[in-house]
């Protein structure tokens, strides 16, 4: 079994923006600070700590994101969006194909479990993959501000980029 985590990979969430005042908002790159994944030829699991989100960068907006704002977003995610809830993925089926795997399974996000499929690519010891998570499918209300005129886009992209340990 191959074990993955922050020591050998990054788990990143990318968010977009919408609404009439979308121009005022930022596209965010958020790194998950604490997570653990396991990978075997027929099973994939991943557990992420909802309280470990760190805003790495933001693009767009009417002014640049400073450290204070990035910390503020992390606080908002913690207090108003994820609230320390469960984030757990478990595969139902893993199909090997040339250059990687197709993974089908279920994501438990804040207590709601829904199917989620994605592809993993393996190139030597380099593993990459990404999944699109539509927040409303998990009964989450995308965060909004400015009286609802600025919203986080419903679909966020979660991606993994890891170096497989030697011998795995």
């Amino acid at each position, binding site marked *: 079994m191959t074990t993955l985590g922050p020591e050998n990979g990054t788990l990143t969430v990318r968010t977009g923006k919408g609404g*009439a005042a979308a*121009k*005022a908002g930022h596209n965010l790159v958020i790194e998950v600070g604490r997570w653990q994944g396991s990978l075997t030829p027929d099973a994939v699991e991943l557990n992420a700590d909802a309280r470990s989100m760190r805003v790495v960068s*933001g693009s767009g907006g009417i002014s640049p994101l400073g450290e204070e704002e990035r910390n503020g977003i992390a606080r908002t995610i913690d207090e108003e969006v994820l609230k320390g809830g469960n984030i757990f993925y478990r595969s139902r089926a893993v199909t090997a194909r040339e250059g990687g795997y197709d993974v089908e399974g279920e994501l438990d996000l804040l207590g709601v479990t829904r199917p989620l499929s994605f592809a993993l690519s393996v190139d030597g010891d380099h593993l990459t993959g990404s999944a699109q998570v539509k927040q409303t499918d998990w009964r989450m209300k995308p965060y909004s501000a*400015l*009286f609802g*005129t600025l919203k986080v886009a419903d679909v966020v992209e979660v991606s993994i980029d890891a170096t497989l340990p030697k011998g795995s």
Partner: protein
Amino acid sequence: MVELDHSFSTGKPADYNWDAVLDLDRIIPCVEGGKVLELENPDLAKAEIKVKMGAMSMTFKGTVEVASKDEAERRAVLRVKSKDTGGSGYANADVAFSLNDGGGTIHTEAKITGKAASMGEGVVATVLDALIKDFTTKLAAI
């Protein structure tokens, strides 16, 4: 310049609405993020409004003044003059109230410059419209 018209219902008599709208201590906090810093006299207050845009926020500081009032006609104009504390922009507005039994109407003429205005006038108008609608729902409960 952005011009907007709104109506609101309070379910209260015109006299009550008149007193409420001209009470700066009560009406300024009805604007989301609005705060009276100092009431200089019944017709003039130093105030600020903090507009949260997700992680970012903009704070405008300035004055709210009763620029004109006609008690017989139940019409009053509140004049807002404010500067962006984090930049060189400003947000000024004349907010004209026409009151009657049960509620009233608001005509707003606003001029906004600086960072907020860089979103474009259409966006500013949309956000201002949403802010005033939120204000009218709070006004209903004043």
